């Protein structure tokens, strides 16, 4: 009987993944790959429901969600000896949560896309200037870009407590001016094109469509730096296909696969050896230096404060 590996991934770019990762892997291992997609929360909820009898063998989630899964006892330590390219990964990708239960496979920078003809962005705090605030979109706290952006704003305001109280307060004060608190980054291109907004904090992976607009849009390098995020791979506890899952991770993390994913502008490589063309590099978050410079919120901080951020956000901004 043919072996089957069930993976759980983000719903993005599945056609490309299929071409670059899934099909080649199936050919290589002589097994069948079943793919489940969805956002990380609902996929983890399902893993939790199926805890006793896991359906999914391996999943990719955000750093913080990996930690949350680990705390819930849903995942296992990863045997890195089975991953040939482990040592070629950037250091921050090797064990992002420090518990040996996840490996980063891609990361991204988050900064500000803005109309260079309308404004000048030197600091994250510039976005809230009265003359700009009426022309910006800010990520909702529930999105992936929300907390990192607030964190950077906190740095800019010089009040970077883990509860993000000061930046939330500041955003709340400008809430009537701010055009929208976006939920889906996809809408930003639309708003930018309609001149509804001039600037918004975005993840680098959504940069490409902005660059195609017939407008002078720039990627800011604020003095506080850029933030970002990392997606990681995890292995389900009690998975019956652990070895196959590790084999699959090895394949995905290989320089070859990572290069191809980068060329297709899907994932920035976490593998140092991945070769990336100039053109692709321009649209992605690329290079060890960049990786090291990103100011990421530690998973534990984010997990422990998530509910609190939401509460103060709702009070200051949602009212």
């Amino acid at each position: 009987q043919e072996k089957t590996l069930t993976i759980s991934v983000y719903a993005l770019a599945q056609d490309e993944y299929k071409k670059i990762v899934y099909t080649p892997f199936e050919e290589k291992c002589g097994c069948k790959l079943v793919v489940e997609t969805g956002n990380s929360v609902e996929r983890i909820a399902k893993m939790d429901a199926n805890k006793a009898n896991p359906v999914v063998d391996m999943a990719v989630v955000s750093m913080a969600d990996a930690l949350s899964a680990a705390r819930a006892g849903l995942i296992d330590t990863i045997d890195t000896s089975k991953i040939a390219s482990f040592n070629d990964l950037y250091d921050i990708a090797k064990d992002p949560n420090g518990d040996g239960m996840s490996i980063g496979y891609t990361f991204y920078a988050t900064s500000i896309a803005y109309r260079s003809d309308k404004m000048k962005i030197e600091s994250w705090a510039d976005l809230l200037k009265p003359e700009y605030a009426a022309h910006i979109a800010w990520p909702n706290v529930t999105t992936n870009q929300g907390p990192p952006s607030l964190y950077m704003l906190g740095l800019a305001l010089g009040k970077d407590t883990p509860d993000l109280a000061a930046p939330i307060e500041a955003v709340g004060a400008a809430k009537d001016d701010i055009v929208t608190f976006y939920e889906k980054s996809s809408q930003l291109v639309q708003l930018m094109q309609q001149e509804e907004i001039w600037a918004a904090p975005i993840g680098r992976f959504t940069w490409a469509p902005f660059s195609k607009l017939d407008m002078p849009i720039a990627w800011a390098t604020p003095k506080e730096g850029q933030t970002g995020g990392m997606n990681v791979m995890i292995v389900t506890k009690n998975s019956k296909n652990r070895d196959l899952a590790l084999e699959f991770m090895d394949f995905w993390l290989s320089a070859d696969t990572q290069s191809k994913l980068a060329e297709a502008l899907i994932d920035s490589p976490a593998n140092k050896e991945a070769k990336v063309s100039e053109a692709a590099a321009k649209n992605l978050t690329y290079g060890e230096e960049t990786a090291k410079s990103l100011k990421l919120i530690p998973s534990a901080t984010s997990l422990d404060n998530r509910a609190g951020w939401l509460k103060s956000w709702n009070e200051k901004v949602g009212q």
Partner: protein
Amino acid sequence: MMARNLFIPITLGLVITFLIGPFLIIVAASFSAGETLAFPPQGFSLRWIAKVFTVESFRDSFYMSMFLAIGGTLAALILGIPASYALSRYKLPGAETIRTIVSAPIIVPGIIVGLSLLRYIVVPFQVGITLALFLAHTALILPYAVRVVSASLGNLRSDIEEAAVLLGSSRLGAFFRVVLPNIRGGIMSAFILGFVTSFNQVPVSLFLSGPGVRTLPVDMIAYMEIVFDPSVAALSALLAFMSIGIVFLAERFLGFSRYV
């Protein structure tokens, strides 16, 4: 009564403009050359339409959604029409309770439906995701089937059924020959409501998706999470045209406007 001559076109004009306006924007965008939705559209191109057909995952999820929408609606009608008939024609003890039970699914937030079915049906009974989706969608459509059909049965005089029976028809035959033709409008409405409810259902399907099983709206939302290019508009437009086609076919098939 004179006012009526103006009342009808004016009302319909305004309502249709309001309802269809956004759709026109979407159609325009589908054929535009630009990267975003815009009105008036920037240039003309079929590339977004073409792109829809190259996205492979849309195809599988489209089939799944069609199966759920059509299968679920038919199943709900098969369960719902007899129930509404019983509720409006017979003096049934506990009629209100039955009505409440079959109507309940519309008032529960989808996300809760999805979660509870996942936890208490799919996991404990090891029900396949496709079957679970089918059951969930049937349950979600059931209220439309029962209530909308009841609404049109309620006003339909019942002596025509008696007449049909006296002319030699069986009770069932009378139902098909004289009740059904006169409530075709209601059944069409129920079908339409059921179909679109199922076809656009996101929150329930979110939790009831599984390895290899996805519905189209979930897929589309995932696709739009990060990029919104007019291909999604194009897909929407295509789906809308398809739905018109389905309504048209259903009407042909059920012959509803011939009768009402």
